[in-house]
């Protein structure tokens, strides 16, 4: 099995769509890479793959090697800068045109998920993050079945569950937590995404999708609450256009100053910045938040390993 050299497998799950599974996966991957780990991302959302867009590698095509597929490299490890390599695999790379619909019934999806788990040549990886579609259906059942059968017990670390705060979302995510309980997948923790938006004009924070729902749910199920992530349009701009995030003076996250120095922002007003995503991401206000979430996830994973 191609997963034999992978140390830890972490699933990113949510019963609800559009809560930010793919953006959380992306940011966990970047944060883990920044912390010096080698990371792989497997996108099993077959009918709506977002991961290629997230890493701005939509044009990439998968290379076939004897007996398997080679994942796409986002960046190689850089010993000097202290970050690990990042590789990605998604169905998006197999589509002839990006607008093509993938209309598959269950058995076909099951076969594809199994193939993704057995035939991708992941090299040595510290972490493999698996991004999933919403729900508790074919893809999830196949993932759980295959991983519980084939992966070593110490490999499958568990699942990070993503939700947004409003009751309509947590109602679906509660079902996902029950899915994890039934299939015996350990929940590493809950991330509450899209919690609060800071107006760029008056700095008033509005809880657009309410607040606190994720924490209440985590307490109800007795799982770890990993933290709240606010809405930052700058992150979206970074993903969509590659523009380095800039913040007005006085912006602070977790006590860390995030504002862009004046002279620097005058110098480089360009919209496109050729630097790697992993170089630009630390400038985003969400980076420090994810740094602590990632540290929590790693510590939870270590508990499983023991």
């Amino acid at each position: 099995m191609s997963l034999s050299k992978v140390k830890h497998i972490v699933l990113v799950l949510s019963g609800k769509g559009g809560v930010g599974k793919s953006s959380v996966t992306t940011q966990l991957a970047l944060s883990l890479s920044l912390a010096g780990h080698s990371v792989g991302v497997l996108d099993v959302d077959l009918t709506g793959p977002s991961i290629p867009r997230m890493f701005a590698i939509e044009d990439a095509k998968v290379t076939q090697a004897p007996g398997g597929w080679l994942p796409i490299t986002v960046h190689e490890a850089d010993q000097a800068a202290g970050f690990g390599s990042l590789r990605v695999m998604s169905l998006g790379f197999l589509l002839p045109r990006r607008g093509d619909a993938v209309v598959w019934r269950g058995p076909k999806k099951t076969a594809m998920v199994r193939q993704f788990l057995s035939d991708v040549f992941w090299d040595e990886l510290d972490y493999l993050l698996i991004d999933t579609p919403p729900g508790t259906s074919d893809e999830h059942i196949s993932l759980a079945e295959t991983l519980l059968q084939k992966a070593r017990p110490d490999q499958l670390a568990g699942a990070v569950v993503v939700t947004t705060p409003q009751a309509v979302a947590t109602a679906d995510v509660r079902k996902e937590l029950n899915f994890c309980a039934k299939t015996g997948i350990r929940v590493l923790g809950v991330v509450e995404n899209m919690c609060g938006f800071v107006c760029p004009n008056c700095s008033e924070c509005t809880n657009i999708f309410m607040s606190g729902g994720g924490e209440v749910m985590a307490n109800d199920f007795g799982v770890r609450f990993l933290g709240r992530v606010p809405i930052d349009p700058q992150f979206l701009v970074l993903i969509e256009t590659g523009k380095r995030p800039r913040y007005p003076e006085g912006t602070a996250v977790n006590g860390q100053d995030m504002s862009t120095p004046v002279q620097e922002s005058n110098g480089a007003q360009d919209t496109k910045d050729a630097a790697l995503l992993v170089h630009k991401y630390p400038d985003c206000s969400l980076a420090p938040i994810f740094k602590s979430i990632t540290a929590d996830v790693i510590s939870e994973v270590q508990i499983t390993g023991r």
Partner: protein
Amino acid sequence: MAPSLEAPEPVEDVLANPLKQKPNLVAPEPEHCPGPESEQAGTADSCAGCPNQKICAAAPKGPDPDIPLITARLAGVKHKILVLSGKGGVGKSTFTCLLAHAFATNPDSTVGVMDTDICGPSIPKMLGVESETIHISSSGWSPAWAMDNLAVMSIQFMLPNRDDAIIWRGPKKNGLIKQFLKDVEWGDLDFLLVDTPPGTSDEHLSVNTFLKESGIDGAVMVTTPQEVSLLDVRKEIDFCRKAGIRVLGLVENMSLFVCPKCTHASEIFQATTGGGRALAQEMGIPFLGSVPLDPRIGMACDYGESFFDSFPDSPACTALKGVVRELAGQIGLDAKEVMPE
């Protein structure tokens, strides 16, 4: 197994092989199973050696015999509208509920909402009927009534506990959707709104197959402005094209957010590629309008209230009314009759 770098199966293939009745299998469906309900069941290459092969091959050919029953059951439904989006969390269910409330403002219209999102049903909560259960009589299942003229059907009504996970594979989901159409006493409805899960998979194919004969008016696409979402919606429009479902129009949800303190409008989900309007133009479909992001819509959904009744003066409400009027025009109805002022 050697990996095959095949191009995904063309949509036409899947659509040209509609469902037939599922035979009783003796073993679970294997990898690469064409589906026991498909036309190639028992005859495809991958069927060789499968313990079910004989059963599948012997099952009666031809279309599902239940389809005429569905057509008869839905004979009293005037308009059938699907709410689709390739992307999750863009507001399909919210928009379905708002649309249902808008149609139901005319006391002479009767509206039905069918929730085909089996693994994450949201409609019951949004319409405030989460604790309802289904009553079964000799003539069929009775839907739950959220208002005097608003009927609802969802899997949520069948769960013993609210948080129970529904861990079902495709064929089982198809079976339930069929029952929702065949066994539910919808009666005479002016509108049947079908809310769908994200993606282009079993639920969408089944709804299309089962409703094809009785006629679908069309589909409303919901999207948010950012490209990550438009990318998936483009796939859904491609699916509708190939399935022959008319796209009634595209609604852009969560387009602007107005700060309640300083009334500064921010684009939270920035339309870096032109948003819904540009996509509608690119795909040649009508653009029905943009609905701003209003936290009170989410709140109304959490409490199962009608946003139209609670905040009739909000800008989001005005925008939604515009969308409903456009939509009424697309299905050839008088907007004033659909939603009297």
